[in-house]
């Protein structure tokens, strides 16, 4: 991966060197987060971060951590139910932001008669289906194509922990160990600690295990890895410590 990706530090409004952008003969250039296109042909960053390019996919984006979660189509999030109307729930994806809508029928196997009863404060693991600056975001807890939940739906029991958006992204990487230098979960698993986990891109991680103590320890280990920017070795050490405690 490293061979196809390069990264440089950018600030908003920097003029990007055209040579630094990937140029693919056939694929259109994909602009990722943190960049904007000013017609006719200026591309400038809008946030401070590392400019990353992927030559193979002909994509360019800015990698950054921090700030508030802004819903993006396709993201998996942990949302809190706030209210319900006739056939939709209103759920909070990020604090103080406008509520997202979650149709009551977009749960696995939900019909008019058998839809889930979710009360105020219930947690759901959901996917963002619509995100648009002019409209409130929309969520679903079922895959439109298969009709299966695919792991989405209400989260019962367990505990949620707040993490940074960057950490959420690392946890969701296809290969967190190689791409994100993140081994804490693998190590915990390797130590024989059993737990369930759901990661929301909105900076929340839900953890459940068979003991309260275990859940707290795992949640705090993830938070510590995030806050203290633990290296791989330190994560291993932490995982061992946590496993011993449990």
């Amino acid at each position, binding site marked *: 991966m490293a061979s196809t990706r390069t990264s440089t530090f950018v600030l908003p409004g920097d003029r990007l060197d055209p040579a630094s952008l990937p140029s693919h003969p056939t694929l259109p250039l994909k602009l990722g987060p943190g960049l904007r296109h000013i017609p006719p042909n200026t591309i400038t960053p809008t946030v401070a971060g590392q400019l990353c390019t992927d030559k193979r996919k002909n994509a360019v984006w800015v990698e950054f951590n921090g700030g508030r979660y802004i819903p993006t189509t396709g993201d998996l999030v942990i949302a809190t139910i706030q209210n319900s109307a006739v056939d939709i729930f209103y759920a909070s994806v990020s604090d*103080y932001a406008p509520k997202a809508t979650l149709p009551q029928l977009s749960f696995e196997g939900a019909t008019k008669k058998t839809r889930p009863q979710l009360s105020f*404060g*219930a*947690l759901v693991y959901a996917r963002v289906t619509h995100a648009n600056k002019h409209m409130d975001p929309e969520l679903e807890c079922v895959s439109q194509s298969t009709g299966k939940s695919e792991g989405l739906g209400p989260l019962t*029991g367990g*505990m*949620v922990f707040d993490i940074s958006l960057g950490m959420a992204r690392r946890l969701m990487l296809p290969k967190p160990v190689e791409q994100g230098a993140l081994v804490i979960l693998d190590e915990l698993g390797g130590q024989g600690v059993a737990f369930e986990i759901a990661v929301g891109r909105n900076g929340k991680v*839900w953890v459940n295990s068979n003991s309260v103590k275990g859940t707290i320890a795992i*949640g*705090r280990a993830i938070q510590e890895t995030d806050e203290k920017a633990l290296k791989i070795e330190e994560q291993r050490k932490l995982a061992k410590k946590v496993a011993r405690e449990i």
Partner: protein
Amino acid sequence: MPREVEPSVNERQFFEKALAENLRLDGRAFDQFRDLELSFGDEFGVADVRLGKTRIHTNISAEVTTPYPDKPFDGLFTITTELSPMTSPHYETSRPSDPEILLSRILEKNLRRSQALDTESLCLIAGHKVWSVRADVHILSHDGNLIDASCISVLAALQHFRKPDTSSEGENVTVYTLEERDPVPLSLLHFPYCVTFSFYPSTVEEGETVILLDSTLLEEQLREGSATIGINKDGELCQIAKLGGISVDAVAFLGCVQVALARVKEISTFVIKRLAEDAKKRDKGDLMAELRAENDR
């Protein structure tokens, strides 16, 4: 404004379960405080307190004004606490919220009514000129237990503050600048700190109460009652505020008072230590400045 975010059902239930197992989410014991940090500003009367992720900044200032006609011998001492959107977006600047009122009331009772600051010593000319001392408490970050942290912050800042020296001749008062005369400390009579207890109904034993000290924001949102005890290290109670909430056995409550007294002794020692460290640093700084000045000559 958007309203305050409330904890989810899962958090509520999990917290309850954890309490039943004698666990807190951040791994502390029930009576354990978070790490307390105290630093002072370059200027006199600036104190910055951190209690875990809670952070309070207090700034003391003083000016000469006329006293209230009904209290001609007393200087003025005001404490302002305003929760700004910096703390959380749901705080509006124009309308005081409930926690803000309770916080300012407790500080008021604890520090002003108990005469921690000797207001009579602020009088320059009776009925005409008095010092008006003002404590601006800025809450920078709120992760629970604002009251205890604010109280430490204000008392530390008051101890750190120096007001300009004055002299009076008849009706004339001369306020000296910092260059002319070294400023003088305030006259503080005692140091009442606050300790806040959070109460939760026990799920293990009916009628029993679980008591937590130095609660975080989540713990505060989930608590069913609380009590703040203001006491100085000499065992003088300055105020007690158990404003409703679940009821607590009187004997258990008397136990809380003893815990508070022990804790306040610790806090007092800590603040005094930090003040001494700061004074030492300042002395060194002054010495350096003098040496530099001599070199310049």
